[in-house]
């Protein structure tokens, strides 16, 4: 691997609506292992933000602890980032979002972070419908501590160490569906054609958007005995093609009529779903749960956009906060002044 980034820029690099090139969306050089799925996810986020012409500084990146949680340093270097505490990113993201509702919040977590130590926080941030993109970089193992099984490791799946996992797996997608998540998707780090539009749709979604991304750990959990390795996932993935059409673009699809479901988003954007194996209404939570379950039963991993609520209130709407970011309120708006204290004092005599 290289240790420093070349400063050279191709003069004809394509630019987006803001005049930025992809270089403007890069972060530090990744220190993850060569071939790590997480780097592909970082690249997909970078591409999605570039193509959506998002101003990098209007994004806040938050993460917990682990390999996945290191990765926000490797994309969007002009954004603030917060590598917080193991499993506790959801609460930090909640506070950050409450302080300034105008930024875009991207949370990066892993399976250890979200399904074990942070399962409680994960469940509750789903319940709060916090407006954020929440990516779980799911590799079924603890990479940074060298390959222990995580709570999402499938029963019988074995890492490089060779011991079959004896415990039932936790499925964050099923859990999120069950407790009322308003946008639930699953994808694969090796499928950027699907992952990038999902990221765009998730960023556009108003409310909590979960993308559980199977992201193989090349060093510890990519053996043939693992159900989270590249080979196994490619062979067992039930793939749903996803297109994201931003609000101002004309809708045109290349899929055959009758196989595509168009899903409108709150700002006028649209998601096109091209279905192969699964045929269910994307607004039907129970159908999504059933489809996930049936695929799992058949030994398949169902990927794509699985559920999206028609409309839902995010946390700010539930709490009834002002449209101005709370961190921008002035002293005059916050401090009632001495006059009011007189009446308080009077009431306490």
């Amino acid at each position, binding site marked *: 691997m290289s240790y420093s980034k070349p400063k050279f820029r191709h003069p004809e690099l394509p630019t987006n609506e803001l005049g930025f090139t992809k270089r403007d969306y890069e972060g530090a050089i990744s220190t993850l292992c060569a071939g790590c799925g997480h780097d592909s996810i970082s690249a997909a986020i970078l591409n999605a933000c570039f193509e959506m012409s998002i101003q990098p*500084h209007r994004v806040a990146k938050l993460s917990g602890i682990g390999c996945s949680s290191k990765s926000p340093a490797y994309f969007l270097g002009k954004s*603030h980032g917060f590598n917080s505490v193991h499993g506790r990113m959801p609460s*930090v993201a909640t506070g950050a979002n*409450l302080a300034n509702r105008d930024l875009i919040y991207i949370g990066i977590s892993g399976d250890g972070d979200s399904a074990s130590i942070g399962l409680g926080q994960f469940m509750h941030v789903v319940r709060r419908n916090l407006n954020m993109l929440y990516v779980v970089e799911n590799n079924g193992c603890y990479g940074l501590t060298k390959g222990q099984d995580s709570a999402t490791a499938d029963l019988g799946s074995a890492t490089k160490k060779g011991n079959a996992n004896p415990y039932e797996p936790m499925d964050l997608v099923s859990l999120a569906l069950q407790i009322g998540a308003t946008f639930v998707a699953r994808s694969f780090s090796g499928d950027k054609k699907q992952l990038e539009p999902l990221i765009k749709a998730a960023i556009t979604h108003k409310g909590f958007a979960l993308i559980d991304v199977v992201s193989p750990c090349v060093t510890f959990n990519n053996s043939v005995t693992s159900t989270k390795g590249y080979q196994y996932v490619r062979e067992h993935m039930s793939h749903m093609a996803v297109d994201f059409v931003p609000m101002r673009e004309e809708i045109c699809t290349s899929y055959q009529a009758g196989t595509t479901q168009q899903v409108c988003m709150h700002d006028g954007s649209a998601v096109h779903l091209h279905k192969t194996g699964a045929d269910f209404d994307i607004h039907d939570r129970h159908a999504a749960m059933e489809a996930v379950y049936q695929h799992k039963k058949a030994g398949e991993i169902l990927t794509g956009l699985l559920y999206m609520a028609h409309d839902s209130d995010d946390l700010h709407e539930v709490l009834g906060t002002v449209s101005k970011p*709370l961190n921008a*309120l002035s002293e005059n708006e916050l401090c009632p002044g001495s006059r009011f204290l007189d009446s308080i004092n009077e009431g306490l005599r």
Partner: protein
Amino acid sequence: MRRIEAVNDFVIKFANVNGTGSASANHMFAKSIFRMGIPVSPRNIFPSNIQGLPTWYEVRVSQRGYLGRRGGVDIMLCVNPQSMADDIQSLDPGGYFIYDSTKPLDTRLMRKDVEFIGIPFTQICLREYEDARLRLLFKNMIYVGALAALLNIDFAVLKDLVSDQFKGKEKLITPNVHAMELGFQYAIENFSCPLGIRVERASEIGEHISYTHHILMDGNTATALGAIYGGATVAGWYPITPSTSVVEAFERYARRLRIDPGTGKNNFAIVQAEDELSAMGIVLGAAWNGARAFTATSGPGLSLMTEFLGLAYFAEVPVVLINVQRAGPSTGMPTRTQQPDILAAAYASHGDTKHVLLFPSTPRECFDMSAQAFDLADRLQTPIIMMSDLDLGMNEHMSPPLEWDDSRKFDRGKVLTAEDLDSMDARFGRYLDTDADGIPYRTYPGTHPEKGAFFTRGSSRDVYATYTEDGEAYVHNMQRLLKKFETAKRYVPAPKIKMAKQKASVGALFFGTTASPCYEAVEMLAKEGHAVDTIRIRAFPFNQDVEKFISEHEMVFVIEQNRDGQLRRLLINEGELPPNKLISILHYDGMPITARSIAMSMRDSLSDNKVTPIIRKTVRKTAKKVKS
């Protein structure tokens, strides 16, 4: 038998069953005395239970303004047979035992040195009311009425209080006043009223000090109001006694004072989190993103928050934590008071951490320090922990009125705006010690398209927030954090020192709710010829006045409400002070410390004769100015 006789100087205790509505009646009793211009300090002594267990309510009445617990009980009003035997025993000789005489008192419980006053509360209720719930509730009002007669409380004041309490529910006023009249009448007809113990309006006994401009307020409400005035917009919290009412009061005030006039929307956000870890995470995220944010908790919650507190210390995020202390641990004595979290808070978390602590001792100080905590946090970019306790937080205390200086401005500390970043020649470094005070400059997320963004981590980074595990960079950062802690001494509230009238070689050092009874104890000793100087600690880190005070005295009592002398240990740890000079006086039974016990401990140390019994005169001097 010599009965205790006293005017405006006594302790009355109510023994009730919890869940019977007694606390509000008892509160009304205390407030009526307060409204007569006499200092009171009521204390609710309650179990961790909703209904059926014994609960007490102790009211100290002190014309001289002593608001701490005195120790001992002069009048016991007992309507709880469960605790009756102990309640009788707890009375001082010459005291009065007022009880429900519907059933005859077990003669074996009688004491010869106590006056027994039986009033058939239950019988009166059975006669007057059909409904069982009313019988229960009005019994409380009946005894308040009886006390008005027995203690010479102005009945008109009580009637006003009933009207205040039932504003908006006017039809409840007449029956409540009637219940009080029933008790009042019974007492007048059956006893020689008032008793030897009584209250008189201050003006009528020649007292010049009037407390009518004072307020009666609990510390948690004052703390919440401080957070409103200090500009807090985000609160993450998890319910835990005795801190719950901080956030509840914050919400109450926010709904009145923080509604955007144009839209009717909220200029605040409160999230009841899934646990205390999350509560602190919310505060950390909001503070990182430039909002003023706080949480309130108690010991077990503090334990759960310590990981985040460490991150906030190293990542230099300005969080505010209100710790309303109680006796530990989780299944400990959640409704009993102590000061047991000093060390846990001062050194909360892993790695080399230390935190700024504030020690309020009155509701007024809760208000002031809570508001100040947000300025300190922003200025110092570090957690600020305000150490209140159950006694201060949940009980009402007489306090000077709250004040706010309208010319005061929030100190948001070293925050760079987009304009600042544009006008800077040098590269922005989040952890650069530009001003040589250990405090770096920060930017809020979203400030500038090109400059000022940084990646927040614990400590594996250099001064530009770039990832490194270089040892030198780590040490450099740790030294700067230490320097910042030194800088904090300039900003935190200074201790309050009171020198004795004569030169004293002995000092007393204390903080928080220990202060009030300490001042009283020191005055008791002064009358006995022992001069003691005092210093009330208001913050950690300690400034140089603290060390100077200790070095100028031969012996310093360190008085606190925990087992291990935690503040003393912190002093020794941080100040390199001679331990043998610091004499611990400790109290940790879950009840607020008393002036008598402090005086006794000091007396023991100061006199040659180590065993000096406390002899209480049954008739005190203040009783002389009784109107005929």
